[in-house]
């Protein structure tokens, strides 16, 4: 986005500005501080206090203002493959280079930059998305192989401005620091809850011969099942707490509080 682009705010965005920084609203509207800059401001003004609103703001602000360009054509496509699939409920049809991964397609062609490129080699889980309801690594999935599939990314989890329970629990339990692994962690966690409900075992599940029905998620089970998602900030205890809270349905007291 051009720095000098004329500021256009949706009603949702104006409401957020008013809620978050009422004293700055006029200035922002007057000087045309752009949305990207506004997001930067948000992160600098003590993310914790604004965490809930900021997450809601993400939902609003990462939505394109205008209809996206009809097609972002890369400079050249070799061995082009026509592929149609759904992303967060919307039908997408595009021609991709046979080499293009689902991750790059989401990020570079479909403007969905929530899924992150961590290692790009299937070792970190930051690119985790749900394909036909199952968690997979989008960095090791060819877009060409997604014909007819239904993809859900972190952008598709919230209902409007209402966060998915796992998203809300990550914020409440401080399940991240830098946030880079968080979209993958959350997509993975959403799937873990479903997998356990379906009775899918893990390596730490005792006596797989005797399982019938859902598998209880102990902390050990959560850790094992989430082991494909690395967090270099080391937020693991809080990630486990967030998942435990959603799984149990019992509110957990946050392990942190604001001072002063």
């Amino acid at each position, binding site marked *: 986005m051009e720095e000098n682009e004329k500021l256009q705010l949706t009603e949702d965005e104006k409401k957020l500005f008013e809620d978050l920084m009422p004293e700055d609203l006029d200035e922002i509207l007057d000087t045309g501080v752009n949305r990207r800059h506004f997001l930067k401001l948000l992160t600098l003004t003590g993310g914790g206090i604004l965490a809930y609103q900021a997450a809601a703001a993400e939902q609003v602000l990462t939505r394109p203002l205008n209809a996206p360009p009809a097609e972002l054509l890369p400079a050249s496509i*070799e061995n082009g493959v026509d592929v149609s699939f759904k992303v967060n409920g919307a039908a997408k049809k595009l021609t991709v280079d*046979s080499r293009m991964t689902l991750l790059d397609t989401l990020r570079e062609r479909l403007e969905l930059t929530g899924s992150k490129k961590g290692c*790009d080699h299937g070792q970190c889980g930051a690119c985790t998305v749900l394909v036909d309801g*199952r968690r997979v690594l989008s960095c090791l*999935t060819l877009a060409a192989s997604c014909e007819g599939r239904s993809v859900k990314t972190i952008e598709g989890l919230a209902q409007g401005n209402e966060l998915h329970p796992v998203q809300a629990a990550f914020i409440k339990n401080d399940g991240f620091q830098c946030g880079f692994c968080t979209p993958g962690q959350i997509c993975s966690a959403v799937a873990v809850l479903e997998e356990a409900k379906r009775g*899918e*075992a893990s390596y730490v*599940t005792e006596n797989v011969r005797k399982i019938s029905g859902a598998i209880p998620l102990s902390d050990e089970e959560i850790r094992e099942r989430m082991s494909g998602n690395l967090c270099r900030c080391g937020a693991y205890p809080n990630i486990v707490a967030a998942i435990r809270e959603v799984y149990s349905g019992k509110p957990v007291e946050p392990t942190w509080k604001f001072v002063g």
Partner: protein
Amino acid sequence: MRPFKYTNAKDVPSATRLLTANPGGRFLAGGTNLLDLMKEDVERPNELIDISRLGLDQIKTIATGPHKGGLSIGGLGKNTDAANHALVRQHYPLLTQAILAGASGQIRNMATNGGNLLQRTRCPYFYEVSMPCNKREPGTGCGALEGINRLHAIFGWSDKCIAVYPSDMSVALAALDAVVRVRDAAGQERTIPFGDFHRLPGDTPEKDTNLNHGELITAIELPKNNFAEKSYYLKVRDRASYAFALVSVAAALEVSNNRIDQARIAMGGVAHKPWRALQAEQMLVGKEPTEANFRLAAEAAMADAKPLEHNKYKVELGRRSIVRALQVAMDGKRS
């Protein structure tokens, strides 16, 4: 990644014909290993033939033939589904555990059963294209032999290659005497006993398996057995989860009247293929399932180990892992 042609195979005959017609092509199933190696420029196929929509994902009891009453697992079924199928969990829990010990939930949702067998080594010298590697480029030498070989083989290696084979699932399949069913472009089917499927490196480490180019793994067949009550897959690794094995042990026992009728011991992380400890298995037959006997078997299993400069620890680790795996198989108590 180098450019390649992407072809969607419509059915098994056309998939096998397409690959047979192109020596530079490869099948694409789950892609979890192949795409990674293509990004690293280790694998350089000129065509990927996508076989992920061919079906071949059923798991069913074998109705006729030498393995009647056993289980057939579709070659293109997902690892997650194989691990969690009711018949696998009930009759082959060792296989369930081994699959679940490998990779992560995401990768097991993508990886296929046939593809799991065809994983290539994770030897860092194989992955790093600036290093010599006889497996990647025959004749260039082995960087690991005189290099950092902490992760490498202690059994069956040659001076051409000391890499280890990474699959956990295959270690259980070796212990269970599985059979691999494959089909070629002419529609001919053949079965390969699991012990003959993977190869030792010898002078041709570039060949991992005895599968011919163009052949497709249609199913993995498990003979009936009486190990379901007493089996365990132990995996020892650098971190608690999501890491390849330093040493792993698939152990299975059939016991009656406090005597061992049959024993199976297969190891992962120690050789270029799943390593069966046949001599140790034989030693246990007719013996009481005691820790002392497990120790004798473990000694025998590791007697021929030839460790390298940095992996001497694997000999003692292997010994203890065998004892531990047999104990857990026997009493079901993990801790």
